[in-house]
């Protein structure tokens, strides 16, 4: 469904990604694990068209050339949403405004109310806080809102950048349970995580990214058993 070939990204003289290939099929949960600075966030930003890619990069989604779409159209026309690293909520806007802003360019206005209800049924706490400024939410609630916002903006594919970051284990389980629900309703998920164990348990397939190169790929159960992965990412 989403296919990336030879993805290269440079920031000035530093090359962050050296020709990476991967794909996501419909309804799948795929994860990219790797150390800090391996290029995980850059990969997601490249798909979202937030960073320029080198000219021999090929990215297609449902047969469409992703490079023909600017960042806002990737979301509004292709339905690829992105939960950025560090959540990046609009703290001066209310919870409700954050969710509504995500529907800015949606044509199917008749479904917005229904989707909003769905977000509030997945994350009941957001409903209680809907009139509150997003900046006043707790870390867990902020992550819920960031996911809810992505859900509202488009959800053929959801790109998630470190959703576990800064969350207590119990809250983290809540968030991943919610992501599973969203996935079961048909949203494909590309998850980027430093918490490799969590990510591999959650995903069906995984890729291992090392300093801008994909070094391993496969079924996530197999990756969990892989001695190299165990040694490098799962603490032995």
């Amino acid at each position, binding site marked *: 469904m989403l296919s990336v070939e030879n993805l290269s990204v440079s920031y000035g003289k530093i090359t962050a990604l050296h020709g990476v290939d991967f794909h996501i099929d419909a309804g799948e949960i795929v994860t990219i694990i790797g150390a800090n600075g391996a290029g995980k966030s850059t990969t997601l930003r490249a798909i979202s068209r*937030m960073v320029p890619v080198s000219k021999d990069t090929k990215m297609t989604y449902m047969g469409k050339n992703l490079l023909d779409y600017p960042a806002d159209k990737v*979301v509004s026309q292709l339905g690829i949403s992105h939960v950025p690293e560090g959540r990046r909520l609009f*703290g001066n806007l209310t919870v409700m405004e954050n969710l509504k802003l995500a529907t800015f360019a949606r044509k199917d206005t008749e479904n917005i109310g229904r989707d909003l209800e769905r977000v509030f049924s997945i994350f009941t706490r957001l409903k209680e806080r809907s009139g509150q400024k997003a900046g006043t939410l707790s870390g867990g609630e902020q992550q819920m809102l960031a996911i809810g916002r992505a859900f509202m903006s488009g959800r053929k594919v959801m790109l998630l950048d470190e959703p576990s970051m800064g969350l207590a284990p119990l809250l983290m389980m809540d968030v991943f349970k919610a992501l599973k629900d969203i996935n079961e309703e048909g949203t494909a998920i590309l998850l980027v995580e430093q918490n490799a164990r969590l990510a591999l348990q959650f995903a069906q397939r995984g890729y291992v990214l090392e300093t801008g190169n994909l070094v391993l790929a496969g079924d996530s159960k197999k990756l969990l058993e892989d001695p190299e992965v165990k040694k490098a990412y799962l603490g032995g």
Partner: protein
Amino acid sequence: MGGVLLQNLVNALQWGSFYALIALGYSMVYSILMLFNFAHGDIFMVGAYIGFGVATGLIALAKMGTIMMPNWLILVLTLIITMFLTSFVGMLVERIGYRPLRDAPRASAAITGLMIGIILETGNLALLGAQRVSFPPLIVSHTYELGGVFVTNKKIMIVFVSIAFMLALHVFVTRSKWGMAMRAMAVDYVVVPLMGVSINNIARMTFAIGSALAAVAGILFGVAYPVLDPYMGIMFGWKAFVAAILGGRGSIMGATLAGFLLGFIEIFVAMIFPSTLRDLIAYSIVLLILVFRPHGFFGEPYSARLRL
């Protein structure tokens, strides 16, 4: 004494309206793009001149007798058409001057504004010549006496129209989805596209609205002080810029209030001191205010904005 004070209060309200209307444009652009459009004072000038052209054209049309237009209707039409046309000038400035430089060093974007300002001033000079033009009198001045205070119908109109536009802007920014996108851009413009919102469109719209408000100021200024010249926007632009900073960078409420405050300070200083000393004393006071409130009235102590 009370009468004189009240009299000057009315004058200050009118004078402050011009500053406030122009300051809003500076403030809106700053809040979403973190840069000051230094050409904005000249957009005010362009607005006044477009208003002059539109009003002159409409009066000529009315004189030909083909369309019956009372003067108030000409003024309303002039306002609407001029806002529309000036907003295009603003969008053009954004497209040519600012969009290509969005990721350039801030200093480059700052001189862009200065250059565009010079181009607009000298372009006007080249087009219309050095002769000053006179804004056609569309309102016959009436003076009313209310308890010792003399107010003209023009002053009342100017203050009310200005405040109406400021309120309309406030409603737009706080209630509409475009206003919501502007507020979102003010905190973190990098992730705004992830909401499906085109930042180019929001930037274009912001320049358009700011320019339309400057056009309103230009026309109202023309109604009050009919002589226009190509450099009229410079001093006004700088002072409105002062208001925008004094209000707190990026704060719409702050820019409005500071615009009026500047009007008050100038008028009341002129009430006490010789008018040649007006700006010397008025802006020393403003400087003093800024020393004690370096972030302005509604500004944040430091920018908490995130960047990619």
